[in-house]
């Protein structure tokens, strides 16, 4: 039987291949990444793209959440102040309506109510990071202004009824703002400014038309309730965002673990394989040294 006399070159090729494996395993160990090129694991790299995408979307949402939560909290506390102011206005009006006050006291009430009107208008014109939060999409200009050329004075809304939303990674929309028109200048008796302006006019002369004043006071009460109702929308949004952000964070944590498992090197497995490859290498080296030595050639046995 004839044999391939060049078996050493085959052994050398095996040795190269073992060394190549060792190099690859060592690099996986040192980088901690098991998939360093697309062909290492085509399915994993595809999944990796999608996982990283979702992780980053969650991350972006979490960051956006903290930004909008700040704005919503400002809106909420502003509305809280509005409610306080309006409650005070109602108690002032109620005391004026009970008929026990003299003319100058009534006028004083009117002045105090004017102060409250200014305060409420200033609250309604609250801005957050340079943007008016109750102006709808017209957030670059103050939404409310009052003209005193008529009696009662007229407070005008210059914003619009636009509502912005934040879309969660799951595709849900969370309301980010309540336009001033819904809060303060609603239709009918839901108009805070109209009620306040009417009351100021009612008391400005010092004599009270009790019937009218009571009607207007009731209107302010209705408007206050309406503001409180709308404030609930903002509270709801804050809750929704907190819970969506929590869920995004926990989702991100889970996905990061999955992604790590997918792409990262398993140290135990790699170490075992490396040790196996090293054993194989030293075995191959012994075989090559043994077979390659001159004493294995028949020539060495010939008489010299």
């Amino acid at each position, binding site marked *: 039987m004839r044999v*391939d006399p060049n078996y050493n070159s085959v052994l050398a090729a095996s040795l190269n291949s073992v060394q190549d494996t060792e190099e690859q395993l060592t690099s996986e160990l040192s980088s901690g990444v098991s998939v360093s090129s697309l062909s290492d694991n085509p399915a994993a790299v595809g999944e990796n793209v999608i996982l990283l995408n979702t992780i980053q*979307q969650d991350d972006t949402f979490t960051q956006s959440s903290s930004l*909008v939560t700040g704005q919503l909290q400002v809106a909420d506390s502003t509305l809280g102040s509005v409610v306080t102011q309006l409650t005070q206005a109602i108690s002032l009006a109620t005391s004026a309506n009970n008929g026990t006050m003299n003319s100058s006291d009534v006028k004083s009430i009117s002045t105090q109510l004017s102060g409250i009107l200014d305060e409420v208008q200033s609250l309604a014109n609250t801005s957050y990071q340079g943007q008016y939060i109750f102006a709808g*999409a017209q957030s670059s200009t103050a939404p409310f202004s009052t003209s005193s050329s008529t009696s009662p004075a007229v407070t005008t809304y210059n914003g619009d009824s636009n509502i912005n939303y934040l879309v969660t990674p799951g595709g849900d929309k969370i309301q980010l703002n309540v336009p001033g028109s819904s809060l303060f200048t609603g239709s009918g008796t839901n108009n805070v400014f109209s009620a306040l302006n009417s009351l100021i006019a009612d008391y400005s002369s010092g004599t009270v038309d009790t019937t009218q004043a009571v009607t207007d006071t009731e209107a302010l009460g209705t408007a206050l309730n309406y503001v409180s109702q709308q404030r609930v929308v903002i509270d709801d949004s804050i809750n929704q965002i907190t819970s969506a952000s929590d869920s995004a964070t926990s989702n991100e944590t889970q996905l990061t673990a999955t992604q790590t498992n997918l792409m990262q090197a398993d140290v135990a497995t790699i170490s075992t394989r490396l040790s196996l490859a090293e054993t194989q290498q030293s075995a191959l080296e012994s075989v090559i040294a043994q077979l390659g030595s001159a004493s294995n050639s028949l*020539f060495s046995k010939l008489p010299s």
Partner: protein
Amino acid sequence: MGTINSALSLMTQALDSDQAALNVTSNNVANASTTGYTEETPTWQENSSVVISGISYGQGATMTGATSQRDTVLQERLNQQQQLASASSTRLTALDSVQAVFTPSSGTSTTTGDIGTDLTSFFSSFSSLESSPTSNSLREKVLSSASTLASDVSSAASSLESQRSALDQEASGVVSQVNALTTSIAQLNQQIQATGTSTDNSLEDQRQNDLAKLSTLVGVNQVSTGNDGMQITTTSGQLLVSGDSSYQLTTGMSGGVTHIYSGTTDITSGLASGGGQLGGYLTARDTDIPNTLSSLDQLAYSVSTQVNTLNNAGTDQAGDTSNAGDIFSAPTQVSGSALSMSVVMTDPDHIAAASSTAGTGDNSNAIAMAALASQTIVSGQTPTNYYSDFVSTLGSTVSNVETENTAQTASVTQLQTQVDSISAVNLNDEASSLTTMERSYQAAAQVFSTLNTLMAQAINIGTETTVS
């Protein structure tokens, strides 16, 4: 009648033949490491016997020459397998460079240049803009992530283009090597035919060696013709060598790449599927890289077009409605979109976050642009899924070629072992034949010496003096 004289001459011939055989062994040992050398064995032939008076006398043996130990069928199988293996190995090397352009991202923030991450960052920047549509810093972030995406896509495309032109040059280089080899084979054909049938083993060794080299370069078929001639065609049938004529391949530019011609026939596509390095280069150049590029083009085209369309449909920070302008340079056609992808918008105020019917504080157009990330805008897939499929497909292609190459290389090794077991110089065999020939020579010399003594005795018959 057999005489001592004839026996002496028989031994002289034996000594000559043994010397010739020792020469063959020495030549084998000397060429043990010569590439393309085929082990030779001495051929012995029994001389015709002579019949004298009805008695047949053997006339010894002659060493008629050395025969190369080759199996041309096995050699041809090795060559064929070599063509496949070197095609896949060349293609694999090219594909490795291609996939290196798309190194997978291992984490969320560390990898730069990963188009998948860029896509996500870009669409996420619109999600961020939802939270504060008038924020200048968030608008800047949209533009900067758009720039990163565009420049990474464009530099990937440019890298692929330059790889393609490098492959093109390699392919041209291979063509000139092929021409040199076919010229050499044609000359060897002529010499072999001139010197007669198989008298000069070294010429055949050279021819086989050239053929083996040719097989690493290009896919060929060989047909042995009469009188030791050889005809070589490409696997698609174009004649390269016929007898003492070689037919040169020529190159010419067509469609921006080198095409290869036999005469006036464009045989590029036939060579691409034919095998050899040339097949590998051409497959990578004409199939793998164009496929990869066209996927990138599709991605760049769809993203640029869709984002531009939406931006132009909204209201920008300056209050411009339906006239905000393009974010990306508008591609006119899919082909070339990746290479030319760039951001043309310089003023972040021109990002139309608001819808066309709303004030500048609105964010519904930003929502719409962020939503593109989850819409099937690229060949019926979302941008991220498209890119995910793209890298998986590319990875699978590389992995398949890798597997194919491993199998083919193993097969080549196996065939090479078989060929070597027949044709390579086995030094143990040579040591053994050296000893045999040495003993044979010693024996012949001894017989000669004995015969010489006998002859002297015959001459000295009847005399007392001795002849020395």
